[in-house]
């Protein structure tokens, strides 16, 4: 099936150097619609939804930002925000802007960590996109379920 014009344009914007230095696809050779379909299937297999995952990430994002650089703790989780100057746009062409920076979460019980950006929370919720394999901020659905104890 031919990719839609929309996804073709999105994929172009996901390439390195367009919005971010390393882009959003990593070394994933699959077309974007395959990446989306595969992660969608994984989420269903895990009994989760994109919305639920995004909601949990948003919660920790909000907690981390409240510490403005200081690690914040909630139950078995510690999160810290590393904010940078400026905003970044979504490669999906959404009209909102998103704060630059990254959120790092550590599951203190297991030592596992997740790192994501405020933009990624939006892309998961609105587009079911977890970034391509090998991308800097890729969140693998199985790992997300395990680390966040969903």
């Amino acid at each position: 099936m031919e990719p839609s014009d929309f996804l073709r344009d999105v994929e172009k914007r996901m390439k390195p150097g367009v919005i971010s230095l390393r882009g959003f696809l990593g070394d994933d050779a699959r077309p974007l619609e395959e990446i989306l379909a595969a992660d969608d299937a994984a989420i269903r297999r895990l009994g989760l939804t994109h919305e639920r995952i995004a909601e949990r990430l948003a919660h920790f994002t909000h907690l981390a930002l409240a510490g403005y650089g200081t690690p914040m703790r909630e139950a078995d989780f510690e999160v810290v925000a590393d904010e940078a100057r400026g905003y970044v746009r979504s490669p999906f062409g959404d009209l909102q802007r998103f704060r630059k920076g990254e959120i790092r979460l550590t599951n203190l019980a297991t030592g596992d960590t997740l790192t994501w950006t405020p933009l990624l929370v939006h892309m998961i919720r609105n587009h079911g996109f977890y970034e391509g394999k090998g991308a800097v901020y890729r969140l693998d659905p199985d790992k997300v379920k395990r680390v966040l104890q969903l």
Partner: protein
Amino acid sequence: MPYLSPEERADNVRLSCCIRVRSDMELRIPEEILSLREYQTRVERVRDLTYDVREFRLVLVDPHEIPFRAGQYVNFVIPPYGDSPEPVYRAYSMSSPPGAKAALEFLIRRVPQGIATTFLFDHLREGDPLRINGPYGEFTLRPTDADVVMIAGSTGIAPIKSILDDMAQANSPRKVTLFFGVLELRDLFYRDVLLDIQKKLPNLTFIPALSRKAPQDNWDGETGLITDVLSRQVPGPSSAEAYLCGSPGMIDASIRVLHEKGITDDRIFFDKFA
């Protein structure tokens, strides 16, 4: 309203390309816009201040001077390189005072995966050319006699240092309290520089604060969230002006404390790193 943050919409900011003029309108064009231009510079010195903060010193080549007000910023023109095929523009505040027009200093922190800082840290070398344009910004000291509270987070100290240097050169008698917040002791840079400025400005009180203290840190200064430090140290009610530069989260939280101390929005000025 696309492309505007919630804060901008609340501040009645609108994009000029998205509004319709239905009646007479008064436009205020800041005079400094007429003096905006591009400058060719040469990197004179690059100095590591911490593991992720560098000081860059640029000598003006053409023109050989740039007039600006303390607290303003310029845009760096980051050329195409590596995986970045197009030039990009990023704003950085001058940390040097306006009196030193022939060379500019900047304090820049590496942003993970950042297009601009990856170039600045990994590719730009002493002697290289760099284009900048400006100056821009209204984060400048207001010409009043009011006491001043300054709050800087990490490289947010840049425009504030420029303002303090400028005040020192003018022998300003204004009372200033500077809060400089960083995460840990290893992130605290420019301590000696700011202590030196304190000697030149007798009414400056410099209060560095660490968000957390590592066991091995030899530190008996303020520790904790900057908002807690402000709550302890800023007396209220206060008639001071406040100048803040740092991350949006830090600024928003600090402003809430300033409000509690009686400092109203008309006396709060910030550069929100956005």
